[in-house]
Structures are given as C-alpha cells and as structure tokens.
C-alpha cells in the first residue's frame, strides 16, 4: 500500500502502464525483459558459434583458406563503423537521460546512418561472392555452397573442397543472421527517433531508448566475435 502512496505522483505519467504500480517497476521490468531476450540471443547465435568451433577444429586449413579469401580491410572498416554506431547509441541514451531532445534524435540518426553503412558494405561483399553464381556460364568465383561453388578460385585442393564449403556456409549463415538483426534494428531505431523528436522521452522516462540501445550493443558484440573468427584466421 505504501508503495502506491509513494508513487502517487507518477500514477499520472502517461507512459505508465496500468498493470505496473510505478514507473520504476516498469523500467526495471522492461530492462530485465530486454536482458533476458539478449540471453536467448546469445544461445541463438551460440548454436552457430558451437558449429563453427566443431568444424574449425576439424578443418583448420580449409577455414584458413576460406578466411584468406575475405578482405580483412573491409572487415576492419566495418568493425570500426559498428563500434562507432555503439558509441552514438550510448550517447543517444545519455542525451535522453540529461534531457537533450535534439541530441537524442541526432545520435539515433547517426546510429542508423552508421548501421546502414555497415549493411551497404555487406551488400557489396555478398554481391562479389553471389553474383558469379547466378545465371548460366562458368560461375567463376561463385562462393555460395552448392553445385556451383567454385573452389578453384580459392586454390583449394581435393579433400578440402567440401570442407571449405562448410566455412562459407558458416560465413553466410553467421553474417547473414547478424545482418538480419541489424535490418530489424533499423526501423525500430527510426521509431524511437521519431518518438524522441515528438518529445516523448526525458530524464524521468526514456526506457525505450535504453532497451533499444541494449539490443543494438548486443548486435555489435556479435560482430566483435565474428570479425576475428571469420576474417582473421591464421596468419596473413
């Protein structure tokens, strides 16, 4: 009962949902909910990382050959872009916490911009590998696993041919799933930016910005592991 009285003033905050007794309870629940969601995402990607572990242990040369074919410079650039987007996201949450509405919008738009750059680069990287597989012809340079896979372009011999296809299967599955998470994140960020522009968030309530931020940082963390594991295998 006393908890209700203490938060009586907040009962009128428009963002408070009816089943919560206070804004703080709502914020704590939302935050915990996002962390629990992230926990299941760790296991979701984790299945792929486990698969990667098994096959890299079994086929180290094939993985090395596949990895050498990727451009580490592009991966490095994309890593910096994504880390930068995490910085802008964190600064967006910070701006909401200190009540600077315009900066919130600005930093979230910057996050979206950097995320889009990342996706654009990925589109280019994928295109290089997928375009040769389309249509008729010799499919030189095709790196999509399957009948049209062109191992000759990787200078891989005999027994390792099948194994290097597994490397590329993992490459597409892991970076593809990661990219999908970013693609899903962009409209969510846009929505938050819109509501921020409408003045919905302030120091006493900016929970959606906070929890979307948690999601975005998680997507960054996945890439932090993907970059060395896919792009930097073996000495260059």
């Amino acid at each position, binding site marked *: *009962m006393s*908890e*209700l009285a203490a938060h009586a003033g907040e009962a009128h905050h428009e963002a408070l949902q*009816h*089943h*919560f*007794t206070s804004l703080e*309870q709502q914020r*704590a*629940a939302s935050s*915990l*909910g996002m962390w*629990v*969601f992230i*926990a*299941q*995402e760790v*296991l*979701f*990607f*984790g*299945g*792929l990382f*486990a*698969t990667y572990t*098994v*096959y890299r242990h*079994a*086929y180290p040369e*094939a993985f090395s050959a596949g990895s050498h074919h990727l451009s580490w410079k592009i991966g490095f650039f994309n890593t910096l872009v994504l880390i930068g987007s995490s910085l802008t996201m964190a600064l967006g949450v910070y701006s909401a916490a200190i009540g600077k509405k315009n900066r919130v919008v600005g930093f979230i738009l910057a996050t979206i911009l950097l995320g889009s750059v990342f996706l654009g680069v990925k589109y280019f990287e994928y295109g290089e590998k997928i375009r040769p597989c389309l249509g008729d012809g010799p499919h030189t340079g095709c790196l*999509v*696993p*399957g*009948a049209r896979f062109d191992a000759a372009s990787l200078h891989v011999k005999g027994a390792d041919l*099948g*194994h290097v*296809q*597994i490397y590329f*299967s*993992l490459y*597409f*599955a892991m970076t593809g*799933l990661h990219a999908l998470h970013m693609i899903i994140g962009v409209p969510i960020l846009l929505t938050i930016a819109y509501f921020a522009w409408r003045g919905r968030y302030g120091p006493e309530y900016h929970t959606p910005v906070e929890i979307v931020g948690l999601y975005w940082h998680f997507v960054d963390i996945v890439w932090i592991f993907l970059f060395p594991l896919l792009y930097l295998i073996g000495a260059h």
Partner: protein
Amino acid sequence: MTSESRTLPADHYLKSGWDLKSWLLTTDHKRIGLMYLVSITLMFAIGSIYAGIVRWNLLVPNGSQMSAEAYNKAFTGHGVVMVFFFLIPSIPATLGNFLIPLMIGAKDLAFPRINLLSWYIYVIGAALTMYALLTGGLETGWTFYTPYSTVFAESNVAVAAVGIFIAGFSSILTGLNFIVTIHKMRAPGLTWFRLPLFVWAHYATAIIQILGTPVVAITILLVALERLFHFGFFDPNRGGDPILFQHLFWFYSHPAVYIMILPSMGVISEIVTCFSRKRIFGYSFIAMSSLAIAVIGFLVWAHHMFVTGLSVYSAMVFSALTYLVAVPSAIKTFNWTATLFRGSVQWDTPMIYVFCFIGLFLIGGLTGLFLGNLGTDVHLTDTYFVVAHFHYIMVGGAIMGYLGGLHFWWPKITGRKYVESWGKVSSLLVFVGFNLTFFPQFVLGYLGMPRRYWSYPEEFQILNVLSTAGATILGFGYLFPFSYLTHSVFRGEPAGDNPWGAKGLEWTTQSPPKTHNFDAVPVVDEEPYDYASPPKETVRV
C-alpha cells in the same frame, strides 16, 4: 468449504466483452490463457488422431493396414504435434498464464502485449506445420535426423521446420514474460520462499525455455537452409557431421522434457498439499530441486545418442550426469509422499490425478535409469522400452498433472463446478487405459521390438493388440473431461470463491476473477500452505 448457495459474481473477466475483437485483441492474461487452452486442446486432438493411426497399423504384424510411408508420416505427425504444439506449451501457456499473476498478487504479467503476441506466433507456427503435415506430410520422425531430413527426404521438411521454428518463439516469449513477472511484480510481503511451488516450477521452466529453445531454433533453421540452399553443415559428402545435428537438437530437446514435466510437478505440489490439508513437506527442497532439474537437465543430452557414433568417453560423462539429474526428481517424489503421511486425504478428482502422477512418474523415472546406463542402453535404445519410458513420464506424469490442474482450478477459471462423479470415472478410465497402452510396450521393448517400425515379428502381436485396446480406452478417457468440463461452463453449479478451501492468493479472489484481478494490492504475511490456520476471506472492496 463454505455451504451457502451461490451465484456467479456480477462482474468478472469473461463479461468484459463478448465479441471476437474482445478476445483476439485482449491483453488480459486470463483470456489469453483460455485462447491457448482452446488451441492446444485442438492440437491434442490432432496428435491423438495420429496416435490412433499408429496404433491401428500396429494391430497386425505384417503392415497390411497402410503403406510404410504412411505409417512413418503418422508417427512423425504424432510426435511433432504432441511435443511442440501440445506438451511444451500445455501447462505454462494455459494454467501458468492464468494463474501466475493471481498467485503473486499482480494485475497481469509484465508484458501483456507480448503475451498476446506469443499466442499469435503459436497459432501461425501451428498452422504452417499442419499445412506441411497435411499436404505431403513429414516422415523423418519428430527428431529430424540428418542427413535423411536434409538430403534424402522427399517431404515437407523445410516448411515444417519453419513452422516449428516460429512456434519456438512463442515458448521463448512465454518464458521471458514469466521470469520478469516473477522477479518484478510480486506483491508486498511475497518473498521468494513464500511463493507457491507452482510459481517456482514455472520459473525453473522459463529458464529452460530461454536458454534451450534458441539452440533448437537455429538448428532447425540450419536444416531448412540445408534443404533449400544446400549449405552442407550436416552432409557427410561435404565433411559435415550428422552427429553434430543430433548434439544441437538434443541440447534443447532433452531440457525440453523438463519444460514438459516441471510445470506438472508444480501442479502436483499445489494439489497434494491442499487435499492432504497439510503443509507440504520440504518446501525449500522442492523449490531448489526445480532449479536443479532445470540446470542439470542441460548437461545430459547425449544420453539420446549413446549408439550413434559418439565418443565412448563422452558417453561415459553424459551417463554419469544422467544419473545425477534423477536425484532432484526423486527428492520431490519423496516430499510429495511425505506430505500425504498423517495428512487428511480428500479423494476429489484433482487428488486422484496426483496419485496417478506419483505412481506413473515413478515407473517412468525408474525405467529411465536403465536407459541412462550405457550397457543396458545398447540393448534398449530405439526399442519400445524407450517409447514406454517417455510415455509414462509425458502422459502418466505430465498429462495427469495437467488434468489434475485443470480440475483443481476449473472453478476459479470458470466460476463453476464440474460433476465430481464424472471426474472420478474419467480418471479411472484414463489410468486403466494408459497402463494397458504402455505397460505392454515395456515388455515389447525388452523383447527387442524396435520403435518406428511399420511391421514386426508375429510373436509380438498380442502385446500390440493389448496396447491398441488400451489406447482406445484412453481416448474415451480423454473425451469425457472434454465433454463434462465444457458442459460445466454453461450448466455447472456456481463454485464460490474457494470451493476447495485452498491456500494461495488466487483463492482470495472471486470466481471467476475480475479483469484486473485485485481491487487492492494484497499484502502477504503468512507462510505458504499454512493449512493449520483457516483460509483467508476473499478481499472485497
């Protein structure tokens, strides 16, 4: 138990809207629980039809009733529907959704809209999977073993895989909602060790749902990808390892069986204490055992793979861990039994199901020990011994608990009583039918009859006929509650707030509860299951 004549309360959650929109757009956890109840009952009926087809085929030894392919599709359909669309959601999505906010003194779950979303996701997943099963079917077994499922099967593997993938997110969201709700929305005074054991059980279950389901989700997605794009993760021709699929699949699917049984154990704890009129024995041990089962359950998965080509050293590790996971279940069983000792046992229908559960779960659990042992498993694996073992747990255990829970809380959910004599008759039918169906299968397995075989040696026929006869009785046993419970919704006698005289916050509200559950936030100041003191009066404002 109060004896004044009763009417239904003037205002309750079922009255806040009659049209389709008030149901399909509801965020009330009680209505969502009922929508789940309707959906999973439908899926149970479909799964039972598949079971009927399987048992029909096994009446004769030579497979003359149907083609082998049709039989394979039948047992696969039975497994897929029952595991993913009945057992996994059953108690959490129906009773859990309905009761958890009531039990902790909250107005709803933490995320009501996500709750509704989880139901829609379930329905979409179920619709897609049924589409796959009915147009062309699936013959891989519910376990989707590769490379058969990825390379050789000519059925709707990819579509079914996507349907199951989608349904998995329903389970994850339910678990997420429960964890946050139980942590953040307990009423004042409701400390962790005052929580009902039903809530502890769902908390432990939710942990498994969150940490296990995503792994099978990604695995089944990889199967779909391999079917569609030939990725080769599990294809030996490209260096893939089919055993890796099994590892990833069972990493979830073993803990999944604890998702299926833990909520049921929670129900048993609630009923056994109420109908013994006695405080449950070893409350904290039962609570901690639920957590222990959830955690240790993640460490034993490869006991499903002992004969597949696993390293024998790895198998030894998993076998030892499997023996460990039996311990907390045994602790619980002992504690329930100890609760009965010197209690005042009331033989109402929910309690009959408790006795069924304890006896049948005991048999199921003990037979699991033979399977966990490497040596005996070599002979028993992939035989009917395994089939009998898991049906004793899943049907003799989980479903008995589900039925007991439905009967126990039915008055709270609907505001009405069912006819008790029908309850007793049905429970007897279910018990007899169940044992007649599955006990012969222990013998068949021991004698060497393999599972998933369309035909079998003639000397096994009599046991198979007995099993099919039992399945028929069991089917009638299930039809009866469906009929009289549905009938009670329209014609049942009003039950009053607390017809059983039970402890627990849900029994302090009216039956059926108001939409927002409690008019004022309840304050909890007594220990759970304090049957020595009289039941609390309903709080009316």
